[in-house]
């Protein structure tokens, strides 16, 4: 025990000493524990990006919390009445960090780069990009895409410098990352830290920022700390200035901390538990149904998260119209139904509290990731499954290993996961038959589902039509119990009041590039 305490105190005091040496105008932020380990800053090819990506890159448009869109690298846009073309006017006089100009040619180069990547679905509907003039481009569509602006506002739509991207090849995003954003990438060590320096030529802030010029912070260090309580200790001892995501269960403690301020934004996350539908016992829909209804969302919300946030009864955040499904299909805790369907499926309760069928025990693998919140939710889910007679063995992985394991396709059964996304196309991302293993952890590949997916993704001309189609796809997934929904958190971040001056209002869906230019450091 001595060694642990020694190490812990040594670590904290070391960081405090380091922090005291930090100069004014420099700041250290900590990424949320769930963003730890994002392997690159290559927005075209990455499947995971952390929040710092939006500090390096600008996007064509960005989205405000009220779902409205605002221009960033595009100043205005319009779509043809039939949805078969979109015209964007681009911001003039914008240059990449490497001095290359941003113009219509950049977009002509950029859009086709998505072909063959995991992110291709966001640009799939674009047939080709035509140059109208140096600062005007026209997207000629293969089919209407009512989700165009949302896609253009995604973090994956940060626009990189063509020259840097092509010259670095596969190393792009790790060895270097060049955008037009408020910060330049100085150095990046995966899983540890990213050092950013101010882009003094920054001139492409959107309407969501008050400051239209370069950022106020000169050098920004983004640290990755997988353990929330360690990050909290760092903030408390002055080792860091801001935690970009704070688990909800820390709120009571943070509110009593002097000098620390907590800000809460509406959430875009959902905790859920996919079930690998391709292997026993989850090939049986009844077992999946039983698992889905064994999860007591309310107990988790009230006791683990102190009632902050909301329960999840579907796959989507409740702010989305596509989450308003037929109430009969919503998945809400019903242990009696769980037990009944397990009985029907022939799983008989044994004296040890576990069900069995034909000599096989109902014992499954339950995976989770490092991080206090993950492990806690997982342990509660384990106990809730046990209550209906399902045994679950927990294995804790780090973020990189778990993805490699999912890609093997047959290793996993249940996993507690969380995603952050504010659009119904996340249903396609996690359930399309084209992405089995990862990110389709449920290994869900069913003809009817693929048909509904195709219709929702490509067959909608207007936003309303898209809502109807995605709702139908969502309902089909719910009816097949390919996952168990758990919890919808809010976003919290905390900062040291003696070090950081926050803008009066924080706009946008998350704490991203548009706010970072407004944040100041006390001198």
């Amino acid at each position, binding site marked *: *025990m001595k*060694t*642990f305490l020694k190490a*812990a105190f040594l670590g904290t005091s070391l960081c405090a000493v380091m922090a005291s040496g930090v100069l004014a105008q420099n700041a250290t932020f900590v990424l949320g524990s769930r963003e730890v380990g994002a392997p690159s800053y290559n927005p075209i090819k990455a499947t995971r990006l952390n929040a710092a990506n939006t500090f390096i890159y600008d996007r064509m448009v960005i989205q405000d919390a009220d779902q409205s869109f605002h221009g960033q690298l595009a100043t205005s846009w319009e779509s043809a009445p039939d949805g078969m073309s979109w015209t964007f006017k681009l911001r003039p006089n914008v240059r990449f960090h490497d001095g290359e100009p941003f113009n219509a040619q950049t977009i002509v180069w950029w859009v086709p780069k998505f072909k063959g990547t995991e992110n291709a679905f966001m640009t799939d509907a674009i047939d080709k990009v035509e140059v109208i003039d140096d600062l005007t481009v026209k997207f000629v569509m293969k089919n209407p895409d009512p989700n165009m602006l949302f896609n253009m506002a995604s973090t994956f739509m940060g626009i990189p410098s063509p020259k840097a991207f092509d010259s670095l090849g596969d190393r792009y995003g790790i060895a270097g990352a060049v955008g037009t954003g408020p910060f330049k990438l100085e150095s990046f060590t995966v899983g540890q830290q990213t050092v950013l320096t101010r882009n003094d030529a920054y001139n492409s802030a959107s309407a969501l920022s008050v400051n239209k010029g370069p950022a106020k912070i000169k050098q920004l260090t983004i640290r990755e700390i997988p*353990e*929330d*309580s360690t990050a909290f200790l760092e903030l408390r001892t002055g080792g860091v200035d801001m935690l970009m995501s704070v688990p909800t269960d820390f709120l*009571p*403690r943070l509110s009593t901390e002097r000098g620390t301020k907590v800000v809460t934004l509406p959430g875009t996350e959902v905790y859920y538990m996919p079930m690998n539908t391709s292997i026993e016992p989850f090939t049986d829909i009844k077992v999946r149904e039983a698992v889905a209804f064994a999860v007591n969302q309310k*107990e988790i919300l*009230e*006791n*683990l998260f102190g009632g902050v946030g909301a329960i999840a009864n579907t796959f989507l955040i409740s702010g989305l119209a596509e989450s308003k499904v037929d109430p009969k299909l919503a998945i809400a805790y019903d242990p009696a139904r769980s037990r009944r369907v397990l009985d029907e499926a022939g799983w008989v309760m044994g004296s040890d509290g576990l069900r069995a069928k034909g000599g096989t025990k109902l014992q499954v693998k339950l995976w989770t990731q*490092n991080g*206090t919140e993950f*492990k*806690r939710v*997982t*342990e*509660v889910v*384990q*106990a809730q499954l*046990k209550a209906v007679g399902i045994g679950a*063995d*927990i*294995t*804790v992985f780090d973020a990189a290993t778990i993805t490699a394991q999912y890609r093997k396709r047959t290793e996993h059964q249940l996993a507690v996961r969380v995603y952050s996304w504010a659009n119904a196309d996340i249903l396609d991302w996690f359930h399309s038959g084209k992405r089995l293993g990862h990110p389709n952890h449920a290994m869900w590949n069913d003809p009817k589902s693929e048909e509904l997916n195709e219709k929702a993704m490509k067959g909608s001309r207007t936003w309303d039509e898209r809502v109807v189609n995605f709702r139908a796809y969502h309902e089909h997934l719910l009816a097949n119990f390919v996952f168990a929904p758990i919890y919808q958190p809010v976003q919290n971040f905390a900062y040291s009041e003696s070090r950081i001056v926050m803008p009066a209002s924080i706009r946008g869906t998350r704490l991203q590039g548009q706010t970072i230019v407004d944040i100041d450091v006390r001198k």
Partner: protein
Amino acid sequence: MDKDSALMRLLRTPRGAISAVVLGVIVIAAVLAPVIAPYGYAIQNLRLANMEPSAAHWLGTDEFGRDLLSRIIHGARTSLAVGVTSITISMVCGMALGAAAGYFGGAFDRAVTVVVDLSWSFPEILLALILIAILGPGLASTMIAISVAYLAQFTRLTRAQVMALKSETYIEATIAMGAGSGHVLFRHLLPNAITPVIVAGMLATGDAIILEATLGFFGLGAQPPTPSWGAMMSSGTAQIFIAPWIIIFPGLAIAITVIAINLFGDALIDALDIRKRLREN
């Protein structure tokens, strides 16, 4: 050597008696855990999460509302089982290797010595971490990892003992009278070499319990909900400000157990010390 009298000598010293009593209590608690623990170790009651020590929960509850006392009692099983099993495996294998190397000498001895010296140069925790990375987390792999980590110690000790004893005249006489290698090893060398190995094993058990706790702290030992003292401390770090008892009590359990084992080991050294006995006489 008369075992009973050695044990009696051990119990007559205060530290021997106290450590024996403490260890006895811990072993009984571990063996009878399901009977004496006031609650089940896996029973969650989220409404009672992070409760401070009270009449209902003597040591308080953890972040899932589980009774901490019950988890510590059950955790003793994990700690002792891992500590004792892995050191026993390590001792048996180490003695076999060390005795063979010391007795037969030659190329086999050189090979064993090289491997042992090599593994001796790594810290035990590093060896254990490497092995668990290969085997995957869990109780069985923790035991294997700890036994391999401590193997070098017992191999070296036995080898040294056997080599020293081999040149004694009574061994030479036995060999001259035509005794086979098996007879010499098992009837004469090992019984005489075993005493220091047992003492070293006793002391290593304390270290092994700490190593198990360390691996558990990293989430590599027993997987939830099976309680292990190290893993309990690990989850307690997240609650250190609101429920410090979650980290304090398992820490105390580790400290008390390891101190008791070490004191008992020390007392055992004295009790088994032949020279001291001669002096006393």
